[in-house]
């Protein structure tokens, strides 16, 4: 092999610590190396041209670039060697900047280390072979998990591009948390008015198949062809037959707290989640239904079937968009706020329901305990959020929705008072700061400080809030009718789905994206994308923007009809293989099977981790361009340098 080694100075980033000339001289002595060059900025146009020219003029068939980290410039140099007519697998790139010059001060030792790193790369390159990308046909269909505003947006966007979508929602209706909101900041659009047309549109679209009361049971396969198993729970009502007359609801004897009104009102065991629910049909809550059968007798459409069974549906999709959204942090974990003890301490979504004309009080602002009209409200921000004992992060939307709550309340109830306890007001966004000012101009009193105690005064029925005003440096006591907690946002993603998808999550169960800036909607699992609050706290416009972006990324994968994968996967030498199955058992992707007594790799499933190669007792399975021989040669070469 004729190898050329190109050492970058990176201005003084490398050359300031590493003696590049000495590296060049040492590397020149290595077997296989016929050409060594150094240059100020190898990644620059003239730097790349040096490589192209040397490959052509010196007849090189292998190139090593020692510069910054490959994650920054591997692609740059891979294209350069391809321009020179070589396969990109004839290139090895190693970092002598992040891994060397930037972390050491001793020039002599850093130079020796650079030589060792480059020697390792040369040794590895000697064992590299050329491969063609693996081409996989893709299924042009997308699974969207979660039917909130992010999921709906992604589904509609894909359907409009002509890509069929399966939209899966756990609850009986799509719409998500946004359907529960009254008005939205900072424009005060009515949430239902902007959401329900989208719900209807997605339900109507011929390319979108919606499964409500459904969950993902398992996912197999990989980008282009995920095999998905869905469990569809019975709704007890034939959606097409139900005429929404509501007779069933009237005769049902079972009453349970309404999820949609967050327990502030009751619903029956046969119910419609909310007036604009999609699918527009009643649904039976089998957990509470006593199967008394009264609803069946009164249903004029014969739509009710209490013997419906769970269904398992299997679908193949090319990409998956995860949009499972958020829940509020459980207020019970903060007992000092008396949530769940005093009924007049409520959470922010409950206050949305109280404001709403379709809500438990028909939009009249009365408090839950005794129905007393509310004149004075205390809003407490950062309940759970920005608290090292609960959620260390900022939930981002609470400052804005609290200002909205205060403003709507003050406008709705003449002569009322609204107090807001806050740590900092975070109003970064178009029109946000102005909106906070507007709430304050309408009379919302902002108190910087924390609440120390909340209790009910039994004689007056007031909820007494004791806190500390940091700016005035004094204790403050407010006798309120109602206390609203701005609870933090937590990911609604469950462990089982994370494991089925094999996607990484952070310690708060928010999905980790490939790159927080450059690839914000892609997960490290190819073909699995994220949209909305499953990735971190965000507001409605951000969720929508991310959903549209995820749809575009899914389309990018699927519209061409095929995808190309990195060919550096595991490979079996069937002459050596004795069919012992160790590789089958260690493969985390189920990518190896035994065929006619020998192991066989499914290249579409293999991710190239090399676990099989490290386990094979006879060395029959090897990871392409990271074979055991190569690994050992790298080790020897690194240690040979004195």
């Amino acid at each position, binding site marked *: 092999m004729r190898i050329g080694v190109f050492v970058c100075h990176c201005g003084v980033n490398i050359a300031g610590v590493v003696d590049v000339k000495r590296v060049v001289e040492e590397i020149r002595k290595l077997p296989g190396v016929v050409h060594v060059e150094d240059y100020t900025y190898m990644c620059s146009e003239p730097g790349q041209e040096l490589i192209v020219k040397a490959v052509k003029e010196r007849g090189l068939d292998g190139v090593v670039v020692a510069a910054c*980290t490959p*994650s920054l410039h591997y692609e740059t140099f891979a294209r350069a060697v391809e321009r020179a007519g070589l396969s990109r697998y004839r290139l090895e790139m190693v*970092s002598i*900047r*992040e*891994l*060397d010059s*930037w*972390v*050491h*001060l*001793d020039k002599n*030792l*850093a130079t*020796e*280390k650079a030589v*060792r*790193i480059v020697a*390792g790369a040369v040794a590895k390159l000697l064992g590299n072979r050329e491969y063609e990308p693996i081409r996989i046909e893709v299924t042009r269909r997308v699974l969207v998990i979660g039917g909130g505003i992010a999921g709906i947006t992604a589904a509609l966007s894909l359907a409009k591009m002509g890509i069929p979508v399966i939209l899966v929602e756990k609850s009986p209706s799509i719409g998500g948390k946004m359907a529960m909101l009254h008005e939205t900041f900072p424009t005060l659009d009515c949430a239902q008015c902007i959401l329900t047309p989208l719900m209807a549109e997605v339900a109507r679209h011929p390319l979108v198949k919606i499964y409500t009361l459904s969950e993902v049971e398992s996912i197999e396969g990989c980008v282009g062809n995920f095999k998905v198993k869905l469990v569809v729970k019975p709704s007890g009502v034939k959606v097409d037959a139900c005429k929404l007359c509501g007779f069933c609801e009237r005769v049902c004897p079972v009453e349970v707290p309404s999820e949609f009104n967050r327990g502030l009102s009751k619903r029956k065991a046969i119910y419609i989640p909310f007036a604009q629910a999609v699918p527009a049909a009643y649904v039976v809550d089998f957990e509470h239904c006593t199967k008394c059968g009264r609803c069946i007798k009164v249903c004029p459409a014969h739509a009710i079937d209490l013997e419906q069974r769970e269904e398992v549906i299997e679908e193949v999709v090319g990409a998956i968009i995860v949009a499972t959204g958020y829940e509020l942090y459980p207020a019970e974990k903060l007992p000092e706020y008396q949530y769940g003890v005093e009924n007049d301490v409520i959470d922010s979504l409950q206050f949305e329901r109280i404001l709403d004309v379709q809500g438990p009080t028909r939009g009249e602002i009365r408090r839950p305990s005794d129905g007393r009209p509310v004149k004075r409200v205390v809003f407490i921000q950062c309940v759970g959020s920005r608290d090292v004992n609960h959620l260390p992060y900022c939930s981002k939307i609470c400052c804005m929705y609290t200002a909205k709550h205060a403003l709507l309340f003050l406008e709705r109830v003449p002569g009322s008072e609204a107090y807001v306890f806050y740590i900092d007001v975070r109003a970064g966004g178009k029109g946000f700061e102005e909106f906070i000012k507007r709430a304050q101009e309408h009379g919302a009193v902002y108190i910087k400080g924390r609440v120390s105690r909340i209790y009910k005064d039994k004689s007056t029925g007031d909820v007494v809030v004791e806190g500390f005003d940091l700016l005035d440096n004094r204790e403050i006591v407010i006798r309120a009718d109602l206390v609203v907690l701005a609870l933090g946002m937590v990911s609604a993603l469950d462990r089982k789905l994370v494991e089925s998808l*094999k996607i*990484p*999550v952070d310690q708060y169960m928010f999905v980790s994206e490939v790159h927080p800036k450059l690839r914000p909607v892609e997960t*490290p699992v190819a073909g699995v994308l994220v949209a909305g609050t499953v990735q971190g706290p965000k507001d409605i416009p951000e969720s929508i923007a991310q959903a549209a972006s995820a749809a575009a990324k899914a389309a990018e994968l699927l519209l061409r009809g095929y995808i190309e994968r990195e060919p550096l996967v595991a490979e079996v030498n069937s002459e050596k293989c004795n069919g012992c199955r160790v590789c089958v058992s*260690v493969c*985390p*992707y189920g990518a190896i099977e035994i065929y006619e007594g020998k192991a066989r790799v499914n290249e579409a499933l293999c*991710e*190239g*981790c*090399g*676990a099989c*190669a*490290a*386990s094979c007792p006879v060395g029959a399975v090897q*990871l392409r361009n*990271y074979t*055991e021989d190569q*690994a*050992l040669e*790298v*080790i*020897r070469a*690194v*240690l*040979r340098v004195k």
Partner: protein
Amino acid sequence: MAFLCKWCAGAAAETAGVMRLRYDPAVTPVIVPCTGRVTPLMILTALLNGADGVLIGGCHTPNDCHYVAGNFKAFKRVYMVKKLLEQVGIEPERVRLEWISATEAPKLARVINEFTEEIRRLGPLGGKYA
């Protein structure tokens, strides 16, 4: 010599560079696709060819591994190698496995410094056993 998983400890090494942390240059990093790809033979080859110690840096258990469970495989293999070394009279401390996530650059620097100090205390392997 250090075998660093390219997703976690290798990425931490990059971050350490960006943060301009300082650590001992006596350790040469070799980036591997996954600690699950590191064979006992690789560790032993390093020790036989002049390395005085081998550090293996991978993703935190249980769920950080980019390839689901390569870190557990590494854990078992390293345990085995350490037992083997012990039986032939070589200090098992010469092989160290650490979980270092991509964000834990300071931990990487600390581990490398601790490890080189430990190896210096043990002295060169070749000198003692060659």
